[in-house]
Every structure is written in structure tokens, then in C-alpha cells.
């Protein structure tokens, strides 16, 4: 896994919105990358009424150092559009920023597009150096759980 932390600038195997965001990060100097991460933390949308105050019914992301909760909904349209709901506390801006990256990159994509996202995609944003490998695992955990939920939703439906 030695290569896991090596800075990768490859984006051609990422969904369009994610590739664009990764490109934005790479154009910035380290300190400015943290500023962009903070903007994404601030832009993470609040949970809709259907989830607000019902964190217990969402999936807890154990890989994160702060309480992060996740829910995934999959539409029954042809591309199986995925909706992602993430909640992270304001006193954990880094974790919120990770949630913001994933929301901005993946919300509204089709199930197959999300399942095709490489598991190490979180390391493509040039953040490993500024944020430390330990913290990066939080985002890897979030992505893994999003994909697992998408898989679960689509597999169950196929059996019906």
C-alpha cells in the first residue's frame, strides 16, 4: 500500500464533477487547499426534514474521528439516481469538508457511476500532506459506506 499516500493527479477515471473538483484542489497551494476544504465544509447542505433529528436511523461512519452520519437513497429511474445525505458537526470542519467533497462530487449520479469510483479516490485531491493519512481514512470510510449502501439498495431491488 506504499503508493496509497503518493500524490496522484490522475482524474480521467473519476466522475466529471469529482474530476473537476480534484483539478481545482491541485491548482491551489497547500494552504489554499485547506481554504477550499473549509468552503466545502460550509457548503454541505443541512439534512432535509425527513432525516433531521433522526441520526439514529442513519449509518454512523466509524472511520471518522467525529460523529458522521450517512444515508443513501436510490431512485427507481433508469440510471438509478443516487441521493446522498451526510451530517457532520460544525466543530469538526475537516470531516465536514470531506463530506462536502463527496456530496458535491457524487450526489445525483447514477448508481453505476458511483460504484465505478475508485476506492482510493479520496487521495486524488492533494490533501494527504496537509491533512495527515490518519484523517484521510475518514473520507475513505465515507466513500466505502456510500458504495456499500448503493450496492445494497440496487441488489435488493433486483431480487424483487
Amino acid at each position, binding site marked *: 500500500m506504499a503508493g496509497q499516500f503518493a500524490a496522484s493527479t490522475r482524474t480521467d477515471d473519476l466522475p466529471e464533477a469529482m474530476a473537476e473538483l480534484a483539478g481545482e484542489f491541485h491548482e491551489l497551494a497547500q494552504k489554499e487547499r*485547506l481554504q477550499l476544504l473549509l468552503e466545502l465544509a460550509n457548503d454541505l447542505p443541512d439534512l432535509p426534514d425527513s432525516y433531521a433529528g433522526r441520526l439514529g436511523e442513519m449509518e454512523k461512519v*466509524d472511520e471518522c474521528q467525529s460523529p458522521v452520519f450517512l444515508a443513501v437513497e436510490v431512485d427507481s429511474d433508469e440510471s438509478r439516481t443516487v441521493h446522498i445525505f451526510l451530517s457532520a458537526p460544525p466543530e*469538526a*470542519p475537516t470531516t465536514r469538508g470531506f463530506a462536502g467533497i463527496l456530496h458535491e462530487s457524487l450526489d445525483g449520479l447514477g448508481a453505476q457511476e458511483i460504484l465505478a469510483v475508485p476506492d482510493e479516490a479520496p487521495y486524488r485531491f492533494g490533501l494527504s500532506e496537509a491533512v*495527515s493519512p490518519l484523517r484521510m481514512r475518514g473520507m475513505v470510510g465515507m466513500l466505502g459506506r456510500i458504495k456499500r449502501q448503493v450496492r445494497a439498495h440496487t441488489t435488493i431491488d433486483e431480487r424483487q
Partner: protein
Amino acid sequence: MTTQAETSQTDAQTKLSAYAHPERLVTTQWLAQNLGADNLVVLESNEDVLLYDTGHIPGALKLDWHLDLNDQLSRDYVDGEQFAQVMGERGIGRDTIVVIYGDKSNWWATYALWVMTLFGHEDVRILDGGRAKWIAEGRETTTDVPTVEAVDYPVVERDDSTIRAFQADVLKHLGQPMVDVRSPGEFSGELLSIPDYPQEGAMRGGHIPGAKSVPWGKAANEDGTFKSREELEALYQDEQGLAPSDDVVAYCRIGERSSHTWFVLTHLLGFEQVRNYDGSWTEWGNSVGVPVER
């Protein structure tokens, strides 16, 4: 007429004066009154690297435990030259009074203080209650990052022999007082990392034989301040039988939580010989042939 704030301030001062080295702590009131003073630099050191950017004490500068204090290649702290740069670019000279504060009951602030002590920086203090207390009291914060004129900080060789323990030192220390400051589940070997944190980094669970379990957070109050001298004496001296003259080694997973306990034992209780084993469980639990107890 004495206001409520003034009364609690007097209480805070009284609490501090009972510690062995009260000069190592400042109250929020003291800091508010001394902000902007010549020869004072305030540093914020957090677990969350973005927290400073969301708002901080006016004039405070960010110190990142990961980027500024750790060597980026080998598992060690920065060397004298790197440290001089980190200090100098923050306008800190050898005689500057440095006050550090942070999130999570000053967990990372005490870690930064411990590293600064390796380099023998003389006057470095902790803001009692840290970031949480400053904010809870409704004191001013800002997102403005101050511009600092760099100064020359001397290149000082790090002293790893006094307050730092390496694995070989700990092996020689077996049978003498040791404090394991991790959570009970990590101590018993059931967990390899803090609950809710990634389970990572060790092949074996358990603790170093003979270590006493005193989770670091027991030394802190709900509001992030340190417990009183009396409460701390009860915790470490009465319950665990440690004495200020003991030669003590403290450890956790990577040496950060144990910096908090090192600070408490050394500066608040006046223990004379406390070393922090920063290799901690991520080294011990991965080492071949070292004894482990469950």
C-alpha cells in the same frame, strides 16, 4: 460591587495557584487582558486542522501538530533547524512567552508544549480550558490571520534524554511506575485504537506489563479545564499510589494523549521525573518479542 465574572475569575486564579507550577497555566481572563502584549505569542493547536480557520482568538497563530512538529519522512519530531523555522516565522524568539490552546481539553496543545519543551523553550504555557472555554464565555474570535514579522530563533539541539522515553528506555524501566493513558478498552486489549477512531496500527492488543490504567481525560473537567490539584492528587497519588519522587513513564497510542498526562504530572502535581514514551502502543504493539499484558 463584585460581578459574577470577577468572582469566578478569582476562583480560577485560586485554583491555579494550588498547582506545583502555576506559571504554566493562564486563565481566559488573563489572556484576554494580555492579548497584543509585546513578547507574547498565542498559538492554537488542534486535532482538526481546519478549526483555526473557522475562527480563533484574535492574534493567535496556527500550529499544526502534524505538519509543523513532526518530521515528514521519518517517524520523529522536527530537528533543531526545522523547529527554529517554525518558531521564527511565528515571531517567536527564545525569550517569547508562548501561550498554547486547542480543542479537546487541550489534548494537542499539551502535545505542542511537550515538543517545545524538548527544545528547551522556557516560557510556554497552556490556556486552562482551551478553545472550548474561550468560546463558551462568549469571548471574541476572528478569522483574520495576523501577519507576522519573522524573527531569528536559535537552532537548538533537541534533548531526547529528559522527558522523552524510547522503547529501549521502557524495556529497562519495566517494573517501575508506568501510566497507560488510553481508554479502558485499549488497555485491556479489546480495542487497538480509541473508540470511534479508526482501528489501526497494532498487531497485538493489551498494555505494557505493570502499567496502571488512568485514561488521560480523567484529568480534565467537562469544560476542558484541568481538575483541581486536590482531585488530581486523589486520582494519581491516592488511587494509583504514584509519588512525586517516582520515575514515571506515560504512554498512549502515538504519544499525544500521554503528553496531556505528562503535563498534569509534571507541572500540576510537581512530579520530578516523568517521561513520555511517544512510540507508545503503535510501536510496542508491533514490536517482536516485547512483553504484553492483558
